[in-house]
């Protein structure tokens, strides 16, 4: 087991190196840079700033400087925020995380329930109805969904705040603060949930359909177990297993935020910041963030495999 993990960790290295190169050189291909974003700068001033920020070095050299710092845990210095990238990420990432986490939990809960019910009642009215609803959610562009919810639920009905994370100017603490934030989270979470639920529901449904046709489910029935036990203990467990990997795959998404949704709901998350950083070409922030996500993705892939190993006795690692 330890060897396995070690080996897998070693395998991560080439992927990460590849990712870092791809990230660096892709960004370096992007036209424009931070200094260029101010059209009023004079050429000399620009040259000065280029030198100051090191934009005048050849790409290769900059790559090695960047990767060197990266290895020391230094993601660089955000040009736009004038502070370390790690600090900027730290400022925004958690609010993204909470929204994503809430919607992740909700999505899974709903998807599992719907998936199970519509699989056990395949081709029933419920199944078809849910299929349509789920496809409908999948077929709506996210920005559009967001707009609809803001319009109806926030502006017209006034049930929820239209955006932001806390009531402006409020100085709440403790529970009141949590409640305030929760209230602001509802709409973005709703959007993310609706977007995410489609695929997952379909996935669970197909998984369940497959599992309930398996021999061991028949065995469970032959033992005279209650149908509830057959479905939830025997079938669902097996259907959930492959999904564990998916769950781990969602890890990076927890931190990478949801660019559109955050923007629409004014959520102070990393997605919104990413957009802004992109418009001003704050490369250290962009690259740092992308690299962070790449690292998370790679780690969560590993985690997915390990988790799967823990959860599924068949592949449980020695």
């Amino acid at each position: 087991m330890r060897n396995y993990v070690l080996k897998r960790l070693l395998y991560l290295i080439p992927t990460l190196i590849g990712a870092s190169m791809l990230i660096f050189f892709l960004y370096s291909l992007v036209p424009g840079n931070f200094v260029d974003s101010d059209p009023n700068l004079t050429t000399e001033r620009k040259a000065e700033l280029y030198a100051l920020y090191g934009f005048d070095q050849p790409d290769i050299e900059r790559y090695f400087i960047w990767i060197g710092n990266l290895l020391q845990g230094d993601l660089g210095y955000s040009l736009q925020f004038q502070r370390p990238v790690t600090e900027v990420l730290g400022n925004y990432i958690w609010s993204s995380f909470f929204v994503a986490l809430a919607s992740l939990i909700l999505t899974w809960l709903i998807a599992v329930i719907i998936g199970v019910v519509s699989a056990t009642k395949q081709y029933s009215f419920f199944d078809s109805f849910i299929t349509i609803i789920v496809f409908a959610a999948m077929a709506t562009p996210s920005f559009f969904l967001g707009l609809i919810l803001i319009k109806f639920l926030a502006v017209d009905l006034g049930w929820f705040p239209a955006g932001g994370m806390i009531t402006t100017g409020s100085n709440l603490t403790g529970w009141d603060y949590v409640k305030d934030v929760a209230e602001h989270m509802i709409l973005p979470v709703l959007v993310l949930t609706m977007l995410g639920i489609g695929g997952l529901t379909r996935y669970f449904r197909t998984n369940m359909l497959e599992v309930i046709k398996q021999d061991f489910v028949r065995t469970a029935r032959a033992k005279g177990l209650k149908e509830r036990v057959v479905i939830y203990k025997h079938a669902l467990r097996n259907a959930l297993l492959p999904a564990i990997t998916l769950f781990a795959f969602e890890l990076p998404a927890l931190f990478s935020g949801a660019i559109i949704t955050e923007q629409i709901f004014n959520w102070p998350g990393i997605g919104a910041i990413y957009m802004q950083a992109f418009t001003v070409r704050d490369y250290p922030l962009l690259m740092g963030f992308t690299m962070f996500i790449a690292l998370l993705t790679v780690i969560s892939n590993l985690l997915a495999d390990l988790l799967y190993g823990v959860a599924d006795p068949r592949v449980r690692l020695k």
Partner: protein
Amino acid sequence: MAKEPILQINQLLTQFYSDGGKVNAVNNVSLEIREGQTVCLVGESGCGKSATAMSVMGLIDPSSGQVSNGEVLFEGQDLLKMKKGDLRRLRGKDFAMIFQEPMSSLNPVLTIGEQITESIIEHELLSKKEAKQRGLELINLVGIGRGEEIFSSYPHQLSGGMLQRIMIAIAISCNPRLLIADEPTTALDVTIQAQILDLLRNLKEERNMSMLLITHDLGVVAEVADYVIVMYAGKIIEQGPVVELFKNPKHPYTKGLLAAKPVINQRREKLYTIPGQVPNLIDLQPSCYFSERCEHCMSICTTKQPPMKQIRDSHDVACWLYEEEVSV
């Protein structure tokens, strides 16, 4: 053998839905199993053996098929008319089943112990601890040592033979009076097959169980059966006590089956072959379903189904060859 029938099937019709229409997988099958008797159901693949067993267990997947007609009387109660809950309470307790593929028939993510005790707890209402005790005994009973170790292991950690023993342990955990075994040894090696058959024989004797054993291996039949039922294309075509049937097969199909099997130390230059193949169950015309492959096919065979006829004491055959009045 004047014992009471423990299971009596009358005119059972089980149909599956398919692209081409309904498939009569079990077509008006009637049979009975008496207390303490081992009945073997033989026939080629697809002839409806498993479907018969599944119909008895009430395990036909409603999305793919249904029992359309007939009675399944278990100790006089019709299982088909029973409420779902009541049937469930009998299932696994009074009658139990073993399946062909031990590897896929056990839940891969639950421990063996969990799967053995589950039905004990469900049916015998024992506590977890008592159930475990019972489980360990069962493991011992089916001839595997290291009870504790097995108890906490997962199916993939055991070999096919061991799993099949576990399946047996699960099936007999609540002392059922009828055990249905659907090709319990087909997936196993000969040496293991011998062990399992031995085990089943012993258990049956010790516990005075009745057994419906499904197989396509005539060798197995000869070893364990008291009574043999031969099925072909969803119908019973011949049945009789084992010695009688092997010594004196009547139906051309039964004869063919016996002749086609290579037997050890009885090498022949050429094996007997039944020409052709099993007909498709979807669009069968009223005829003897074996008529297409039969050497003795007569004109009536292609137009009318032969009725079941008793040849001798409890030896029945469904073949026009034995109907005097038609030999015109």
